[in-house]
């Protein structure tokens, strides 16, 4: 058996994989390993396990990176188009058909710009900040289950891994803001950190709600727990339960805040503090920050899809023939575009409103969701559970919303701590 025959054989097997699209990526990896073993045998080398693992890890890493960079590129153009459409403009439509190649133009522009470092900046920290920002952001997507058995690293503490790494973003933002030696930068960094720390609590707590019911911190197990249909038609996604709906909204708001998107874009509020911690960055470093922000946003949206929207599960039984990974990415896009929709609609928070919202609404509500999930768990998940957990969620929501957030309340006693 010579090399060409092996190649031909493998190619035919590869084409055969397209019969079942659902398992295509997993089967492709298996085929790759088999091909490597056969190739080694052809050359007279017994290919050891670690080499196979190394090659397949590299392939997976490259696949995930490329996927997320493509998502980032597409998002940057779709976001601008949707924003434009909401304001009755065309949006980018010059580069390529319908402006789809705009990210290429943007990339070329960014990379050819001058990389400025302020003279008074702390050079080392200024240089390190984009790296600290991008490294955790690119590591986040590895724990997400993209399809059946399609999870790069099935960590038993996957959710914890995710939140531990997103702490890196806070650090990077601080480093960028401080090292720039610019008042706007440091103000932006302070705002960003205050916001991220405040919203991390409800974010983690609402993720904890799911972990409480599913009894696991592994994303793959969480998605597996959301398979099937209750009452015969309603998918058993966690978002379709009262507590899950509340936790999902809380997580969504927390995700908006963690990825510094409108209405939580105070750290980069253009009209107030130029670009916050990004003020002194240009060229390639700015592009890296931008990319890390978008990849981080997609990663946290992926976690939202995994935790609440059933990951790769189909919404209806008659749609199950569509491959799971298609469902995952469809949901991912739906969540990401909904973030753009929110961005077009809501104005930016004032900083005291933002803190008030985090500590007086988000945090109590996430505890309420935790309570509702516990009630659901012990009430047997039937009709009684539905009614009980719905009551537990709705009553505090109405009370908080009616008495805590009247206009009068938020307008009194306003004090600006950092602007005096």
């Amino acid at each position: 058996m010579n090399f060409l025959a092996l190649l031909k054989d493998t190619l035919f097997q590869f084409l055969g994989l397209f019969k079942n699209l659902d398992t295509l990526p997993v089967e492709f990896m298996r085929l790759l390993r088999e091909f490597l073993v056969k190739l080694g045998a052809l050359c007279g080398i017994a290919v050891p396990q670690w080499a196979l693992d190394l090659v397949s890890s590299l392939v997976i890493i490259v696949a995930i990176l490329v996927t997320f960079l493509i998502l980032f590129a597409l998002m940057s153009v779709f976001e601008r188009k949707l924003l434009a459409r909401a304001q009755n403009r065309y949006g980018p439509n010059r580069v390529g058909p319908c402006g789809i190649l705009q990210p290429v133009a943007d990339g070329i522009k960014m990379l050819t710009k001058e990389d400025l470092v302020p003279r008074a900046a702390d050079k080392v920290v200024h240089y390190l900040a984009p790296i600290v920002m991008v490294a955790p952001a690119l590591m986040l997507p590895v724990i997400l289950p993209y399809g059946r058995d399609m999870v790069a690293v099935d960590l038993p503490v996957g959710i914890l891994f995710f939140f531990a790494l997103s702490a890196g973003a806070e650090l990077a933002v601080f480093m960028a803001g401080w090292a720039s030696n610019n008042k706007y930068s440091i103000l932006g960094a302070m705002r960003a950190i205050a916001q991220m720390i405040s919203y991390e609590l409800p974010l983690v707590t609402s993720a904890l709600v799911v972990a409480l019911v599913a009894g696991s911190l592994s994303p793959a197990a969480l998605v597996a727990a959301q398979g099937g249909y209750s009452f015969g038609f309603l998918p058993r996604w966690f978002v379709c339960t009262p507590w899950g709906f509340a936790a999902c909204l809380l997580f969504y708001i927390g995700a908006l805040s963690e990825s510094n998107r409108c209405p939580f874009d105070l750290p980069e509020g253009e009209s107030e503090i130029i670009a916050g911690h990004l003020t002194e960055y240009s060229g390639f470093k700015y592009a890296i920050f931008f990319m890390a922000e978008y990849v981080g946003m997609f990663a946290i949206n992926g976690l939202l899809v995994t935790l609440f929207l059933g990951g790769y599960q189909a919404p209806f039984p008659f749609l199950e023939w569509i491959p799971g990974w298609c469902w995952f990415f469809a949901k991912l896009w739906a969540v990401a575009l909904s973030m753009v929709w929110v961005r077009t609609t809501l104005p930016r928070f004032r900083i005291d409103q933002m803190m008030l919202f985090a500590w007086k609404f988000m945090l109590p509500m996430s505890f309420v969701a935790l309570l509702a999930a516990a009630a659901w768990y012990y009430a047997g998940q039937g009709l009684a559970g539905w009614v009980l957990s719905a009551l537990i969620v709705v009553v505090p929501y109405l009370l908080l919303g009616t008495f805590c957030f009247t206009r009068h309340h938020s307008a009194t006693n306003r004090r600006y701590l950092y602007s005096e």
Partner: protein
Amino acid sequence: MHDFLQKIVALPWDQSPQWLFLIPGLLMLLAASAAVCLRNLIHSALCLVLSFICLGVLFMALGAEFVGFVQLLVYVGAVAMLILFAILLTPAGEVAASNNPLKNFRLSSALHAAAGAAITFLVLAGLLTAIFFSPRAAHAVLPAQAAAAPVALIGENLLTHTLLPLLGIAVLLTAALVGAALLAKEDTSL
């Protein structure tokens, strides 16, 4: 070429040697020393973060993934941020004072530092002696079954054997939260 490839492939690449954990360990010590020695407070806080990250990696290498990630989450995400915030809120501290060391030199503080260094050296010597001359430490072997800490088991432990300490911690954290908020309030009449 062929033989060379075969030899490379045959090496035990997948069995990491036991000293591999020394890499994060030594990096941790280096970062910690930098954190202590650097004059710029922000730099030393950032070095502290690096040292905490290395400590977390060390925990993970020792099989305690959960503790490692908690370490990253709590120390990098919260404690380091608190320290950085505190440094920014207390300007003109040591940085300004250290601009002219001769002017700020005082005999009492030099004696103070010397005494501190001496105490530290004594403690270090004592600890290292205890560690390297203790027969039990020298003969400690890895248990037959590899140590692992599955999350489910940790959770179960938290709510059974260590329920009381958990409640205590909950009360302590609440008290600390309220206390810190009260202390940091501007017009507090202490």
